[in-house]
């Protein structure tokens, strides 16, 4: 089995595991993490794609992975920020009771 194929299978597996996590997890932080796992799965697939040919490396998938990582970081940051704000509001509401 070539390493590219191994990477591809792992990538698809990670995507599926992440998807299950997003759908099944009840805690928001788990959902955010699961989304990141899905993203990593796709990036693995892209990296494997870049080296389909033994002698050359396709730069386009690598550029896509870099862009994808930036976007994933931004999305995660926003989600965590919203979560913290929500937590603070819930805490002050509970303190009042």
């Amino acid at each position, binding site marked *: 089995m070539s390493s590219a194929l191994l990477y591809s299978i792992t990538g698809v597996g990670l995507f599926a595991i992440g998807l299950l996590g997003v759908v099944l997890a009840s805690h928001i932080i788990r959902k955010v993490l699961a989304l990141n796992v899905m993203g990593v799965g796709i990036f693995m697939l892209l990296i494997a794609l870049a080296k389909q040919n033994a002698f050359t490396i396709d730069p*386009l998938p690598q550029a896509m992975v870099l*862009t994808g990582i930036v976007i994933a970081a931004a999305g995660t940051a926003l989600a965590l920020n919203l979560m913290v704000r929500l937590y603070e509001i819930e805490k002050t509401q509970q303190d009042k009771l």
Partner: protein
Amino acid sequence: MADLNSSLLLPFIVLLPLIAALSGFVSRRNTVQSVLNVGFACLLFLTVAMLTFLFYKENTYQSEVYEIGRWGAPLGIDLLVDGFSMVMIGLTGVLTFILTIYSTVYYANDAQRIRFWPLWWLLIAGLNALFVSADAFNIYVCLEIIGLSAAALVALQSTRAALEAALRYLLVGLLGSLFYLMAIVILYRNHATLDLAQLAARSSDSFPEQIAMILITIGLLLKIALFPLHFWLPPAHANAPTPVSAILSALVVKASLYLLIKFWFEVLSESATFAASQLLGCLGAAAIIYGSWKAFRATQLKVLVAYSTVGQLGYIFLLFPLSAMASNSHSFSSLASQAAVYFIVAHGCAKAAMFLSAGNLILAQGSSDIAQLKGIATREPVNLLAFAIAGVSLIGLPPSAGFIAKWLLLTASIESGQWWWVIIVLSGGLAAAIYLAKILNLAFTGKPSAPGTLAQTHPSKMLTAAALVLALITLALGLNAELILNMAQPILEVNSI
């Protein structure tokens, strides 16, 4: 100026809002910011108007390709517009202009404006970039820019409900984009290109491509909020600030819809199956019925308008069965796609007008409860007029734009021999009439609540004027239907292939 062609303007409709977003960080004084934002809105509107004019004059249904950095298709990113995206850019241009002026008044002297403006312009830059992009991965980036800025805008009011809605909206948006990205990876693996035109030329109905099509459809349906994936839409649209609700309902869901239509009929048309298109049609029909029912049961004004969006989106999905059935016959499919494009425009203008006037009514009454709207007709006649005109278009009464859209849908379903969709379209109109009549009945007949119990204010004239102008545009569109229909010509060219 002789060789000025429309493609040269394409980068500017993306760059202008991006520069405006940056200027939002720099200028913090209220007056400076207002002048800058209105200036940028005017500039963007003029650019879009010029682009539309040139596009029309060239009369080729597709602009020339603009190659960013002169790299060219497989390696670089291309920009281009066809008839459908031109209509979407035009709609974005007009709505951006009016909504920006509305927001300038809405956010005057509000400390939140420092956070609002950069996000607002970023959202518009994302929308414009999506419509001009001809590169599948670039479109993914645009989807994420739209999703992130829209979720942040929903969270602006920082109430518990708004934060919960924004978080759910964000997670659903991210999930949808990841599905789309996965599909793009599969397509790239098979065809080694990201350019939409090249993908379309190399597409077949092979197994990986069908998987890609399914992934794209699921991902985008999540973002469009087609029933039963609509769960995130009503809280997000109802808890956002008024101008944000308007742009979310009028444009942001339409951006994903635009993409879905593009992939179904242009890029991966080979893998579209009859059964799948019937399924989408059935989900659309269910959305019409369910959305209308929930709108009727809503107790908050903005929730009612948001559920009405869930229902109205269902109509556009009738495009899929209507043009699939007639794939061997040119005229039917063209009628269905014209209907869908026209519906997108009509609903965009009407829903923006309705959200603005609903927001004004809520400001005037100091409460978002529908029950509190009793007798508001005497206090806010102009805002109620705007609300009613928008409602007329949503119900589909002549001479509004909604009437033309539904007429085209009805004709398309009768001509393609699928009479059962006629029942759905007609009963959907009736249902819309019922839930909107509930509001109007209350506004005209009820006794006004005693003044002083609620924080009643009088929304400024500019806010009212913006809602009314949008409502009048909806009417004017109904009287000048040819304009949009001629522009929407090209997707039928593609359908016939």
